[in-house]
């Protein structure tokens, strides 16, 4: 049975159909062609599918597309301002935190939500924000550098 999903993605209203069993991740990637949000574990364990849903970071792979009705969703595609990268995006590039890049969109989303809340994140804050984001390439060291650099820039400290 087909549902009509009316939702807002990166400020743009969209309307498309989905099955009840369709996950929000499948809806974004396969129906709406937003490829930036990544498919990895499909079980809510790795964070590659992280999006902002009504202001909060969630795993889109374990969320129903049906629950997106009436929601405000931000994906990685919604962060840059035209050709100007969001400070978190820029910081990830500048510190070498992008190797294969597959975890990167999910990470950037989680970090943006954190730094919108505070530009002085403690180690605990960082841990809370991104413990649910797995990276297999970087060993996390340069990701922590990127978070700090983005925070400094967003706070005008750098």
């Amino acid at each position, binding site marked *: 049975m087909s549902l009509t999903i009316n939702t807002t993605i990166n400020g743009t209203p969209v309307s498309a159909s989905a099955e009840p069993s369709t996950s929000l991740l499948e809806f974004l990637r396969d129906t709406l062609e937003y490829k930036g949000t990544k498919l990895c574990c499909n079980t*809510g364990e790795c964070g590659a599918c992280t999006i902002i849903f009504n202001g909060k970071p969630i795993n889109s*792979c*374990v969320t*129903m597309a049906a629950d997106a009705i009436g929601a405000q969703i931000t994906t990685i595609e919604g962060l840059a301002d035209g050709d100007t990268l969001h400070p978190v995006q820029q910081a990830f590039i500048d510190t070498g935190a992008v190797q294969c890049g597959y975890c990167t969109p999910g990470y950037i989303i989680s970090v943006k939500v954190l730094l919108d809340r505070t530009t002085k994140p403690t180690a605990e804050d960082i841990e809370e924000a991104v*413990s*649910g984001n797995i990276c297999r390439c970087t060993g996390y060291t340069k990701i922590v550098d990127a978070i700090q650099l983005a925070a400094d820039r967003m706070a005008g400290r750098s």
Partner: protein
Amino acid sequence: MDYFEPKTVSEALALLAQHGAEAKVIAGGTDVMVDIKYKEEPGCLVNIKKLPGLGAIQANGGSLRIGPLVTIHDIETNALAREKLPVLWEACHQFASLQIRNTATIGGNICRASPSGETLAPLLVLEAKAKMAFPDGEKTEPFTSFFQGPGKSSVGAKGLLTGIDVPYPAPGSHGVYLKHAVRGAMDIAMVGVAVMVTTNAAKNSLQDARIGLGAVAPTPIRATKTEALLRGKPLTAALVKEAAAMAAAESSPISDQRSSAEYRRWIVEALTRRGLEQTWKAATGKEVV
């Protein structure tokens, strides 16, 4: 797969009665979506997130009333929950990832009835009560009898959890939730231990001691023999040792891909000891001697 978004509790109950074993209730979806992808699609999915009045945390005199649709993160960010129910708060704070906590509901965690469910041992120790709705009326039951086996609870196939009533612990009570994992919050708890003690007015003996154990039996359990051992006594190092060993003996863990039963018993012992030491210190200001 049929799909429904009932607008009232009676509508939801009617759907469950109609579809029986074919029906599956979905709230946050962090468990059920994985079932749908990797096990079987149910005949009919009942999305209860539109049900009104089930998503609030309300102070209610001497207790906190938590709606089943309240997310784990909502509890984590609730000042009253943190202040009054630290045992439950800590479990919510160690619950998977932030992304999951923003979606997963306490009702879902409860009704999933997994022995390792993070919030379950704390609810047992807090002597919280489940409010349920059935076709033939409402029912309230303490969580201490609510869980019947892995995946089995008093809600059953036909009922709905409509509320969680958590009384504030007695004054002079201190509780901790300790989760054993390899990595941290992200792991499913290998062992979960909730300890709450209430000291006497002179703060030199245990008026009450409650120990909840998760992931070490077919349901979350209270270590009742251990509690009886502790009640009324001053907490000494020797008593802590004895109690920890008894709690381990009261558990009946299995060996699985995560760990052996023997190791889980060692951890029950270790965390019960830690829990008693920490709560005694918080209550009395003194180390256990």
